[in-house]
Every structure is written in C-alpha cells, then in structure tokens.
C-alpha cells in the first residue's frame, strides 16, 4: 500500500480508535475491566479465535521503499451478538481470550445503548493506561538522550 493512499484516508473513526485501544491494551488489564463491567452478552462466533502469522512491513524514514521486516503472531476473532451486531478483533500475539473480549467489546461499542458505559468504564481507563505507559517509556528514553556537537568538516 502506498503512502499516498494512507494519507488520503480520513481521520481515524471512533471505531478505529476503540479497536486500537482494545488491541493494544494489556491482556490482564482488559480482562479486569471487562469482568468489572459484568456484561454477559449472548453471542455466536462467526470466526473462532485463530492464531496465525502476519507480515510486518516497514519503511525507513519517510521516503524509503517498503520492506518486509518479519512475521509476527496474530490472533483474530469475529463474533455476532444476538442483536446482529458484528464485532471484530485483531490482537498481537497468541491471546484467544483477549481476542474474544476485544471482539465482544467492539460489538457492544457499536450499539448505542451500551456505547457510553463502555467508553467511560473500559476504553477511557485503558487508553489512559496506554498513554501513561507510552509517556513513561518516552521519559526513560529521553533521559538517555545525548546531543552531539560536531564541527562541520566540509565534506558535503
């Protein structure tokens, strides 16, 4: 996929945001929040959790050619609620339970009746934890920053 087509995409939709949070969150923390909600929706598997490999593609800098970096494990799942809403999840690693919970949450979040509750009690706390973790890592990395000062040697 070219860079252009990615840039042309509209800003991430609300669904993309919550799917990203659900997928990136720590498996145990997600289960804790999920069980705290005590929801037990009726559902049917459209695709049972499957573990497989996916190719990661990278690009050096902003302008390099895309290259295949390597493969990673991935768990995916699709469920349909009794009401007919379809929920989908893709989760890094081998985590069938995480994938099921994320798919169920995705489905419930699409339903207007439960969206507010789940946004407040599941997505927002998880997002805050993700952000805190990211900032902690950034702070750790920042503390090791070295600024180099070199004289121009006139090679350019």
């Amino acid at each position, binding site marked *: 996929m070219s860079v252009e087509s990615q840039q042309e995409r509209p800003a991430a939709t609300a669904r993309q945001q919550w799917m990203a949070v659900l997928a990136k969150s720590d498996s145990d923390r997600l289960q804790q929040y999920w069980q705290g909600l005590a929801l037990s929706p009726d559902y049917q598997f*459209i695709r*049972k959790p499957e573990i497989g490999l996916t190719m990661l593609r990278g690009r050096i800098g902003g302008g390099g050619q895309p290259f295949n970096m390597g493969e990673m494990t991935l768990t995916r799942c699709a469920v349909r609620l009794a009401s007919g809403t*379809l929920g989908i999840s893709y989760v890094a690693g081998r985590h069938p339970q995480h994938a099921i919970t994320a798919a169920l949450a995705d489905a419930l979040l699409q339903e207007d009746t439960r969206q507010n509750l789940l946004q407040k009690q599941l997505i927002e706390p998880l997002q805050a934890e993700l952000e805190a973790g990211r900032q902690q890592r950034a702070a750790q990395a920042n503390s090791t920053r070295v600024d180099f000062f070199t004289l121009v040697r006139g090679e350019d």
Partner: protein
Amino acid sequence: MPVSSHELIAGFAEPVAASQQVFRAALKVMSEPGTLVETDYVEQAPKGLDLSTWQLALSLLDPDTRVWLSPTLAANDAVISNLRFHCQCPLVDAPKEADFAIALHNELPDLAELNWGTAEYPDRSTTLLVQVPGLNSAPFWTLSGPGIEQTRTLSIAGLPETFCADLIKSRQRFPLGIDIFWCCGNRLTALPRTTAIKAGMTEPSQNDKETC
C-alpha cells in the same frame, strides 16, 4: 469490493476437525465416483448456496485458489462476502483462469471454457462444483471406471442436455478433463474425469427433486 458485514455467517464450529472431515468426504466421493455422502458440519450456508457446496468451499478454498462463480452467485452479496471472509479466495471473471468454478445447474459454463490442464500437468485443470436440485442413485447414468467395482448408477436433476453430452464426450480427451463435484442440500457426490458415463433412457423425474 468490501465485505458486507451484515451478511456474514458462522463458518465451521471446529474449523480444523470439520474441514478435515469434509475433505475426507470429498476424497471418498472422488475415489468412489457416484457414491453419495452427507456432510453436516455447518448449520447454515449463505443464501444461495447449499450446505454441501458451502462446506466444500470452506474446506477446499483458500487464498491460493482462484474461484469463478456463475453469474447469479457472483451477483449474490451473501455468497461473495462469506467466501471472501472465510476463504479469502480471489474471485476471477474468466472460468479459464479459475482453479475452482462454482456454478448453479442452470448456469453451467461450457466445458470448453474451463481450464482442462495441459498434457504435462493435467492436474492443473479447473475443478467444477455444481449445485443441482436433485441428486440420487436412481438409474439414469450408468457409471464405470476406477473406484467402481462393476457399475454404479447416478441421477442428477436439472442438467442441460448439451452439458451432459459434452461431459460424456470429454472423456475422449483423457488425461485432460474436468473433475466435478455435485452438491445438493447436504449431499455430495463427484464424477472425476476417469469415470465413463453411459446415458440412460429416462429423464430424471420430478420425483428425484423431492428426495433432496
């Protein structure tokens, strides 16, 4: 074309075990042509496909198999969405390019339009999956050849006469040819290219349709 999420239905409940069982059934009907096998590993099929057609598709198709669909199926959102979601198979416009062709009995492609394989690689031919309104062992066609001890009878309802004639004649080009799975409800049978077909005298009656 995007997948229509509201059309998606469940695939196999136990994907590994069920697709192996269905593959076993496909092997059985191919190696003993004309035997009828019932497969019951899914509860529902996409609207427009029979249970056995859908189970064969789930078992045989994957991202490496190019699939051609007959016009009604190709225009059916439920069918293409579920094929793309569960099998991830590429769909092609020309039957000649397809590894598998799925057709309704009244929309069969000319056999000549399919890929018959080459003399070096006769196995690279198109495999045809045909969904028919009636399938039983009434004596309409008399089959003989490998996998059949003496003869076996098979009756398939709803086939155009020209197609039957072409199929019988296609045996002259062996080892090139088309292997065909016949699907009806949850029943399945197959006629590989090795099976010689002798046409019977009577048409498959309407009663045959009720048996399915």
